[in-house]
């Protein structure tokens, strides 16, 4: 698979000046246990893994955080601002995350509606501007709106992350056209974040030409998260390779694949 992509001379996947081999990023939440999470992350082949910032449980301080299970030297930790509903909260979480000392990247989420967890674009722009000024590399989780994506790019975001469908919904890529348009119009990497449910969703998403995908629930909530992680790895590679290969034109009529000559009388 890697050989095929090399043959097609894929462009490097670079975000904020750092180059990654895997176009699949995975979250670490909602797994039934840490051992399954670690095995799924390994099977996905992801280099970038997302983590959240939360209070230490003071009654169980011996229960270490996620870093006890994931080696920060092996994985690139991308902290998120999940759960934040205002720009101010998101900035506060981002600063705390950076203080943990791994990198200056942050997956910026500002949630505007608790039922759908859809992003608050105004809050995103406000937080992104502040964080970019403070030297953060901001990857902004946004909806599949071209104008919002353009504004986030203008604000200095290192990547824009339109959703496939709402967080944790598993509804797949609802609007391929919008995601394709965002990819066509932006200079910064476009990474689809949220909504992918199974391997075909991931493949179809990558076939739109986007630079990568971030997913969490599709793995964590699968009956076998480790096997699904493997399937997603293949699907992302397949979708990317198919995009680079260039699909055939769609036709409304059949065209035979076997020669018409040499048929028996």
């Amino acid at each position, binding site marked *: 698979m890697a050989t095929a992509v090399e043959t097609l001379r894929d462009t490097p996947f670079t975000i904020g000046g750092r180059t990654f081999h895997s176009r699949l990023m995975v979250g670490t939440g909602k797994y039934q246990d840490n051992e399954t999470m670690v095995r799924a992350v390994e099977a996905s082949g992801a280099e970038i893994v997302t*983590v959240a910032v939360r*209070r230490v449980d003071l009654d169980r301080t011996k229960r270490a*955080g996620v870093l006890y299970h994931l080696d920060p030297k092996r994985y690139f930790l991308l902290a*998120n601002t999940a759960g934040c509903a205002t720009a101010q909260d998101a900035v506060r979480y981002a600063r*705390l995350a950076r203080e*943990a000392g791994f990198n200056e990247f942050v997956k910026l989420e500002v949630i505007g509606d608790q039922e759908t967890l859809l992003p608050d674009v105004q809050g995103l722009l406000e937080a992104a501007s502040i964080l970019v000024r403070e030297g953060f590399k901001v990857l902004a989780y946004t909806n599949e709106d071209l104008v919002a994506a353009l504004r986030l790019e203008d604000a200095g975001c290192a990547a824009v992350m339109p959703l496939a469908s709402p967080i944790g919904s598993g509804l797949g890529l609802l609007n391929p056209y919008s995601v394709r348009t965002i990819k066509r119009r932006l200079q910064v990497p476009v990474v689809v974040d949220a909504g992918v449910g199974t391997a075909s969703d991931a493949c179809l998403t990558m076939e739109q030409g986007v630079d990568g995908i971030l997913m969490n629930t599709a793995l964590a909530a699968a009956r076998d998260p480790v096997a699904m992680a493997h399937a997603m790895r293949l699907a992302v590679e397949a979708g990317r390779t198919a995009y680079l290969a260039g699909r055939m034109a769609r036709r409304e009529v059949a065209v035979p694949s076997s020669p018409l000559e040499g048929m028996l009388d």
Partner: protein
Amino acid sequence: MTDTIDITLNGERRAVTRGVTLLQLLASLELDPRAVVVEHNRTIVRRPALSDVRVAPGDAVELVHFVGGG
């Protein structure tokens, strides 16, 4: 003068030793300073400064770390 004071630690009221530094507070909770980030009255306190900052009555201290997330 009592030898404890009340602070708000991770959103909950808690009695701690009067004059305790943030570093001593972490030690009393069996927390490794390298594994947590400390916010004192909404200001992040960097690791080398943890032994310089003493908590006062009514202070708000937040101790955070990374957990699984998407």
